[in-house]
C-alpha cells in the first residue's frame, strides 16, 4: 500500500508547545513575572537608558526645528544687513544638538547593548541550570530536541529583540509622540489637521498586527517541522542512505519547505501592503497640509517657516510606523519564546533537593526499600509494594523478563525518580534527605546508553571525578580492561572521541563508560545492561575486573546474559514488580524455580 504525502507523521498526543487562547493569557502573566525578574535589578540602568534616549531624541528632533529657525529668523536680518547673530546662534545650536545627540546615542547604544547582553547571559544561565536541575522524568517527556530549541532558537529570539527591537522600538515610539507634540505646539490648528488621519493609521496598524500574528504563528509552525525533519534526516543519515530513503525524504522536505515558503510569503505580502499603505497615508497628509498650510500662509495666518517645519516633521512622523511594524514580528517571537522559557523555569523538579539535608560522610552502601510503590502512570504500578534490604558490600544480580521492573528499581536507587509511596534508604537515610552531590558520590549507575562528551578519552573517563590525575585515569582504564584499546588510538588517552564518541565502536564506548564509573568510586554501583555491547573477551575482562571492583562495594547488576550472575552473591528474580525468587545463585539453580529455567535456556543459547 502506498503512503500518502500527508499522513507520514502519524498521530501523537498534543504538542505541549501549542497553546490555546485561554492558556496564553495566563502565560503572559508568567512571562511578565520573568521579565520583571530579569529587569528589576537593572532598573537604575534602565532609567538612565530612558533618560539618554529622551535627550538623544529631543536633540535629534530639535535639529530641523533649529534649521527652520535659522532660515526664518536668521536670514532675513542678514538680508536687511543686521548681521549674522541669530544665524550663528542657530548654527551653533545645531552643532551642539548634533554633539549631544551623538554622545547620548552612543551611550544609549552601548548601555542598551550591555543591559540586553546581561539579561541574555542571565537567562541562558538560569534556563540551562534549571534544565540540569529538572528530574529525568521531566527530560524523558520533554525530549532533548525541545531542550535544545529552548536554549538556542528561543534564547536567540529574545536576543534579537534586545539587540535591535529595543533600540528601534523605543526610538520609533518616542519619535512619534515627540513629533506629534511638536506639531501641535508649532501650530495648534495645522497640527490638529495634520493629525487628522491618525485614527485611520491606528485602524490600519491594528489590522496589520492581527493579520501578522496569524501569519507569524504559521511561520513558526512550519519552520518547526522543517527543523525536525532536517535534524532527524541528518542524525539518521546512515539509515536514510542504507534504505534509499532520499527521494521520499526529498519529497517530504520539499513539501515542508514549500509550506514554510508560503507562510513566509503571507508575512511578506502583509508588509508589502502595510508599508506603502503607511507611505500613502503619510504622503496624502503632507499634500493636504501643503494645500491647507499654503492657503493659511496666503491668508497671512501662518509663517512660511512653520509650514516648512511641518513638512519636515510629518515625514518623521510616518517613518517610525514602518519601523514599529518591522519589529512587531521580533517582538512577537520574543514574547512566544519568553512564554516557553518562563514555562520551563516554573517547572519544579519532581525529585526535589532536601531543605534540611542529612549528612552522609562515609557511605557504606546499605540499600533498603521500605514498602516502595511506584507508578509512572497512575493506577498502573510498576512496583506494587517492594521490601528489600541489600547489606553493604553485597553484589546483587537482578533477573527477569522485560518490563518486570528491574530498571525501575535501579532508577529508584539512583533517585532518578522518587517512589510514589514508601521510602528508599541508603545507610538508613531516606534518599529524599540527601543532597544531590552527596547521593551522586555514593551511587553511580552505568547503563547501555554510554554518552560520551566531546573531548578526549581521558576527559570522558575523568567525568565523574574531574580532579583525577592521568595516572588514576590510566589505572581505572587498566582495571576495566580498556587500557589496551585506548593506547592503540591515534593519540592514546588524548584522542578526541568525536561527535558523541563517533570515532569509537559501541563496545569501546561502553568500556570507557565503565572506566568512568569505576574512577568515580561510588559505594553503590548499578550496572543496567552495561555489558550488552561488549564482545565476549571484553565482557570477561570486565567481569574479572568486577570481582575486585565490587569486592568492597554494594552492586546491583541487571543483565540478560546470565554470565554476569556468576559474580553475584545473591540473585533476585523479578516478575511484575515483585521479587519472586531470592537466594545465592548456586542454590537457585539447584531448585526448580524460575531462575533455574532461565539458566537452562541461557546454557542452551551458548550451544
Amino acid at each position, binding site marked *: 500500500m502506498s503512503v500518502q504525502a500527508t*499522513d507520514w507523521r*502519524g*498521530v501523537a*498526543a498534543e504538542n505541549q508547545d501549542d497553546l490555546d487562547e485561554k492558556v496564553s493569557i495566563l502565560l503572559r502573566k508568567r512571562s511578565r513575572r520573568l521579565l520583571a525578574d530579569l529587569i528589576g535589578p537593572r532598573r537604575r540602568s534602565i532609567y538612565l537608558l530612558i533618560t539618554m534616549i529622551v535627550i538623544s531624541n529631543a536633540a535629534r528632533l530639535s535639529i530641523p526645528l533649529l534649521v527652520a529657525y535659522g532660515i526664518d529668523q*536668521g*536670514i532675513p536680518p*542678514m538680508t536687511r544687513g543686521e548681521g549674522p547673530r541669530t*544665524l550663528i546662534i542657530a548654527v551653533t545650536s*545645531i552643532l551642539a544638538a548634533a554633539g549631544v*545627540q551623538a554622545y547620548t546615542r552612543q551611550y544609549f547604544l552601548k548601555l542598551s*547593548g550591555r543591559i540586553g547582553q546581561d539579561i541574555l*547571559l542571565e537567562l541562558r*544561565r538560569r534556563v*540551562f541550570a534549571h534544565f*540540569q536541575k529538572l528530574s529525568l522524568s521531566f*527530560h524523558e517527556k520533554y525530549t*532533548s*530536541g525541545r531542550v*535544545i530549541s529552548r536554549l*538556542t532558537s528561543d534564547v536567540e529570539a529574545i536576543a534579537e529583540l534586545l539587540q535591535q527591537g529595543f533600540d528601534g522600538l523605543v526610538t520609533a515610539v518616542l519619535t512619534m509622540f515627540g513629533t506629534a507634540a511638536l506639531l501641535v505646539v508649532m501650530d495648534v490648528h495645522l497640527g490638529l489637521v495634520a493629525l487628522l488621519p491618525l485614527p485611520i493609521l491606528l485602524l490600519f496598524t491594528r489590522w496589520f498586527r492581527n493579520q501578522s500574528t496569524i501569519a507569524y504563528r504559521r511561520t513558526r509552525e512550519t519552520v518547526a517541522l*522543517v527543523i525536525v*525533519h*532536517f535534524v*532527524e534526516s*541528518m542524525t539518521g543519515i546512515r*539509515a536514510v542512505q*542504507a*534504505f*534509499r*530513503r*532520499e527521494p521520499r525524504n*526529498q519529497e517530504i*522536505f520539499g513539501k515542508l519547505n514549500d509550506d*514554510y515558503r508560503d507562510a513566509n510569503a503571507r508575512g*511578506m*505580502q502583509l508588509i*508589502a501592503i502595510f508599508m*506603502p499603505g503607511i*507611505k*500613502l497615508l503619510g504622503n496624502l497628509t503632507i*499634500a493636504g497640509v501643503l494645500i491647507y498650510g499654503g*492657503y493659511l500662509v496666503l491668508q497671512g495666518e501662518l509663517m512660511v517657516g512653520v509650514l516648512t517645519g511641518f513638512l519636515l516633521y510629518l*515625514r518623521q512622523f510616518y517613518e517610525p510606523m514602518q519601523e514599529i511594524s518591522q519589529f512587531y514580528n521580533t517582538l512577537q517571537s520574543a514574547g512566544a519564546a519568553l512564554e516557553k522559557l518562563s514555562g520551563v523555569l516554573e517547572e519544579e523538579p519532581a525529585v526535589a533537593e532536601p531543605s534540611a539535608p542529612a549528612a552522609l560522610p562515609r557511605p557504606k552502601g546499605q540499600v533498603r526499600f521500605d514498602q516502595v510503590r511506584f507508578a509512572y502512570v497512575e493506577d498502573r504500578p510498576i512496583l506494587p509494594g517492594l521490601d528489600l534490604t541489600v547489606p553493604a558490600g553485597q553484589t546483587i544480580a537482578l533477573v527477569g523478563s*522485560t518490563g518486570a521492573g528491574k530498571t525501575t528499581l535501579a532508577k529508584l536507587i539512583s533517585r532518578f525518580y522518587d517512589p510514589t509511596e514508601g521510602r528508599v534508604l541508603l545507610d538508613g537515610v531516606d534518599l529524599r534527605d540527601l543532597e544531590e552531590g552527596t547521593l*551522586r558520590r555514593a551511587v553511580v549507575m*552505568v*547503563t547501555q*546508553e554510554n554518552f560520551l*562528551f566531546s573531548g578526549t578519552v581521558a576527559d570522558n573517563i575523568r*567525568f565523574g571525578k574531574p580532579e583525577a590525575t592521568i595516572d588514576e585515569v590510566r589505572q581505572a582504564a587498566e582495571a576495566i580492561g580498556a587500557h589496551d584499546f585506548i593506547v592503540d588510538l*591515534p593519540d592514546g588517552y588524548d584522542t578526541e572521541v568525536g561527535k558523541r564518541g563517533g570515532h569509537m*565502536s559501541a563496545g*569501546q564506548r561502553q*568500556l570507557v563508560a565503565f572506566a568512568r564509573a569505576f574512577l568515580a568510586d561510588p559505594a553503590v554501583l548499578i550496572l543496567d545492561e552495561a555489558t550488552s555491547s561488549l564482545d565476549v*573477551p571484553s565482557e570477561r575482562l570486565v*567481569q574479572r575486573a568486577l570481582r575486585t571492583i565490587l569486592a568492597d562495594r554494594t552492586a546491583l547488576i541487571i543483565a*540478560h*546474559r546470565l*554470565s554476569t550472575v556468576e559474580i553475584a552473591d545473591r540473585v533476585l528474580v523479578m516478575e511484575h514488580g515483585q521479587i519472586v525468587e531470592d537466594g545465592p545463585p548456586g542454590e537457585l539453580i539447584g531448585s526448580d524455580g524460575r531462575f533455574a529455567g532461565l539458566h537452562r535456556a541461557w546454557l542452551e*543459547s551458548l550451544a
Partner: protein
Amino acid sequence: MRSYLRPYAGKLVLIWTSALLSIGASIAFPLVGEAVIDGPVSRDDPAGLLPLALLAVGVGVAEAVLIFTRRWMLVGPVLGLETKIRDDLYEHLQRLPMRFHGEWQSGQLLSRATTDLSMLRRFLGFGLLFLFMSVIQIAVVTGVLLSKYWPLGLLVLGSAIPIVLLSLKFEKQYIKVSRQVQDEQGDLATLVEESALGIRTIKAFGRAKHVFGTYDDSATQLHASTMQRVRLSAKFWTFLEVIPNVTLALVLLIGAWAVGTGAITLGALLAFTTLMLSLVWPISALGFLIAMAQEAMTSADRVMEVMDTPPSIVDGSGTVAEPRGHLRLEGVGFAYDDKRLLHDVWLDVRPGETVALVGATGSGKTTLTALVPRLLDVTEGRVTVDGHDVRDLRLSALREIVATAFEEPTLFSMSVRENLTLGNKEATDEELESAIQTAQAGFVHDLPWGLDTRIGEQGMSLSGGQRQRLALARAVLSKPKILVLDDTLSALDVETEALVEEALKHVLRDATGIVVAHRASTVLLADKVALLQDGTITHVGTHQELLETVPQYRELLAAEEVLA
C-alpha cells in the same frame, strides 16, 4: 547564485525599475513642496496652488504604488530562491557520505539551512535593495544638490569622504568580530546539545555543576564578544549620524550667506535643507546595511562551504537485472585518515548463504558491513554483487539489494508504518505484519494509535530493545537479497532473542546474510563463520570447525564462563 535568480529575471527588472522610480518619486515629492512655497505661496498666487498641490498628491500616490509593486514582486523571487537553495542543500546533504556526517554536528548543518538562509533572504529581500537604494538616493540627491547650488553640493559631497573611509575600516573589524560571535554561538549550541542528550550521564554522576561551569564559560565568552560587536557598531552608527548633522549646520551657515548675497532664493535653501534631511536616514542606515551585507556574505560562505563539498561516494550507472545476492569481497582494504582499518579481506558469500562475522571489539566488523551498501567506499580492492563492482552500480539499485539493521537503530518522528516501510514503500499490510512478527515487534499494535502512532523524538519514546526490533523489522521488510545484521539483537532479553532468531532463520533462507555476532546463539544463524582479526579475515569455516581448530575463536566465543 545567478542560476537561482534566472527564472525571476523579468520580475527582477520590474522590481528594480519600480525601486528606482520610487526613489525618483521620493526626491520629487519635497521638490513639489518647494515649488508650492516658492511659487504660489511666496507670489501670493492662490490659483497656482491647486495644480501644484494635485501634483504633490499624484507623486505621493505614485511613490506608494511603486513601493507596493516592488515589495509585492519581491516576495516570489526571494522566497523562491531561499526555498530552492534549502531544497538543494538538503538534497546535497543526503548525498554526502557517512564520513562527512560523522564530522559535522547536525546543529551546524541546521544553522546553515535555517539561520544562514534566512539571513540571505533578509538581505536579498530587504538589505540589498535598500543598500543600493540608499547609495542611489545619496548619489541622486547629491547630484540634485550640486545642480541647485554647486558650492553647497560640493560640501555635501565632501562629507561622504569620511563616511566611505570609516565604512571600509569598520567593515574589516566587523567581519572579524561578527564571525567570532557566530562561531561562539555554534560552540554554545554544541554544548547545549550535549547537555541535553547526555542528561542521564550527567545526572548519574551528579555533574550538573561542572557541565554548567563549562556552559557558563562559553556563554560569558560569547557575552564578551557580543559586547565588542555592540561597542563597535555603536561607535560607527553614531558617527554616521553626526556627519550629516554637522554638514547640515554648515549648509545653513553658507546657505544663509548665499541667500544674503542673492546667489540662491530662500525657497531653494529650504528645499536644499529638506533634501539634506532626507539623506540622514539613508546615510545612517548604511552602517546597519553594511553590517547586514557582511553577515549575509558570511552566511553565504557557510552555506557554500557545505554545498562545495563534493560527494565522495558517487553514483554508478549499472543495475543488476536479476539480483541473486552473490557477494564477494576481493582484497578489500579500508583506510581512514591514513589509518588502515581493514586490509586484504577476501570473502565469498554465495546466494542464500549466511556468514557470521566474528571479531573482537574494534576489529572493524561494522566498517566491513558498511562497505557493502557503500555507506563507506573501499580504499583497496573491490566489493562485488553478482559479479558487479558495487561502485559501478546505481546507489539506489545497490541499496535495494542490500539492507542493514544497525545496532543503534534510528527512528524518525513519523508513524510506525512510515518508519517500517522506509526501504519498501510498496509493502502490503500482510508483508508488514509478517515483518513485525519476524522481529517480535507485536508491541506496536498496543501503541495508542497502532501503526499510525508517531514515534521518535517528537512522538512516543520506545525502549532500546523495542527500537532494535523495529529496525530489524524495517530491514526484513525491504526484502533484500543481502541482509546485514550488525549486532542487531544486543538489547533484547534472552527469551525474545531466541524467538527472533527462530524467525530470522526463515528470512535468511531466502537471502544472503551477513551477521555480526558476539554470541554463539547468533552465530548459529549462519552457515559459516568468518573470523576478523587485526583488520583482516583470518579464518573461514563452520562454527564447530573454528571452535576446534582456532584458539582465538574459542577465546572469543566459547568464553562465556558457564556457571558451575
